[in-house]
């Protein structure tokens, strides 16, 4: 407001004071050349801007925008891909965990079966061996008495020899006595 007031006071004072100048803007003589040169210069500038500057600027700006949007698109794609890969990875881990679990369970079962089979086999073998051993023991038990008799007979004979009672060595009597002793002791044992 202040600006406008100062201006108008001044313009009115100037207009009244100096008749020579007044407002040069209102002198019609200067209008035609101004319009003429305005048309020339403005058209020249318009042609330069619309033919040279505008295509250049819009091209470079659009190129940049395209480049940026391309990069953004690529980034989006890549994130999607990584998400997919992550999912696949998770799935793979889950699947392999499940598979491993299955394998463990199956193998445990197989091992158990195998183990049981082998245990049974071993048990059979062990029982066979024990049976054989028992038979052997029994046989040995049977045979041992005869052996003991022979050993006892030979020991007695040897004793009697040592005692130099050679004439007293009567095989029949010795055998008879041993037989009796055996009978008594084995009868006690049995």
């Amino acid at each position, binding site marked *: 407001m202040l*600006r*406008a007031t*100062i*201006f108008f006071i*001044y*313009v009115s004072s*100037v207009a009244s004071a*100096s008749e020579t*100048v*007044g*407002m*040069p*803007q*209102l*002198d019609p*003589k*200067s*209008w*035609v*050349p*101004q*319009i*003429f*040169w*305005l*048309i020339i*210069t*403005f058209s*020249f*500038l*318009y042609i*330069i*801007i*619309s033919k*040279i*500057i*505008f295509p*250049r*600027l*819009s*091209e*470079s*700006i659009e*190129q*940049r925008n395209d*480049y940026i949007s391309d990069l953004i698109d690529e980034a989006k794609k890549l994130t999607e891909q990584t998400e997919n890969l992550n999912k696949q990875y998770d799935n793979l881990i889950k699947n392999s965990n499940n598979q491993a679990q299955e394998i463990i369970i199956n193998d445990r079962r197989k091992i158990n079966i195998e183990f049981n089979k082998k245990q049974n086999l071993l048990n059979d073998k062990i029982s066979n061996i024990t049976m054989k051993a028992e038979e052997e023991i029994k046989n040995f038990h049977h045979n041992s008495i005869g052996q003991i008799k022979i050993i006892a007979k030979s020991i007695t004979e040897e004793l009697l020899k040592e005692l130099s009672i050679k004439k007293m060595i009567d095989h029949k009597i010795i055998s008879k006595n041993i037989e009796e002793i055996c009978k008594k002791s084995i009868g006690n044992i049995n």
Partner: protein
Amino acid sequence: MANPMKQFEVKTIGPKIEIGNFDVSFTNSSLFMLITVSLISIFLIITTQKKSLVPSRLQLLSELAYQFVAKMIAETAGSKARPFFPFILTLFLFVLFCNMIGMLPYSFTVTSHIIVTFALATFIFIGVTIIGFVKHGFGYLKLFVPSGVPIILLPIIVVIEVISYLSRPVSLSVRLFANMMAGHTMLKVFGGFVISLGFVGGWLPLGFSVALTGLEILVAFLQAYVFAILTCIYLNDALNLHH
């Protein structure tokens, strides 16, 4: 004290040129139009020579101007006004540079002449009117009939609308011209005070002068912006009929 209106005088430079009966001599006004246009052209051509993906500082300057105008058009007139982009950019840069070059001491302000701004405004007015009629036919006249107005009021409203439409070139041109002339006159007045008050009392008007110069630079930019944005708004009326 020197007459502050003397700075607006148009003086012929060189020989008198006549086309038909019209005197189209080269004047100081023409000289500054030429200087303005050459400056803009050289500036824009140099700064846009290298189209690098990452712009240099100079390239950024012209891109700044481009994007400033592009945003202005997009916000007021929308995408339909895109073909008129070079014109708006030319208009904005021309007015801006004329105003700014006018701020230099001893220079001439082209836009401080009513005939220049009026020629521009009239061209815009006629152009916008033609675009409106080409786009909408006689439907463009609906512009003068705002929707939702009671029928009794319509005759008055239509008359007011027509008057306001017809006064567009006047308001557009006088706004720019008056602002420029007022600012430069004031600067000259305060400059005159500095001289007449001398070394003792001249400091105060000198301070005013400095402050006013800052203000005038702001006004120079603002008026160029207003001129361009009003053109966009008028263009918007012609392109997208809202009423």
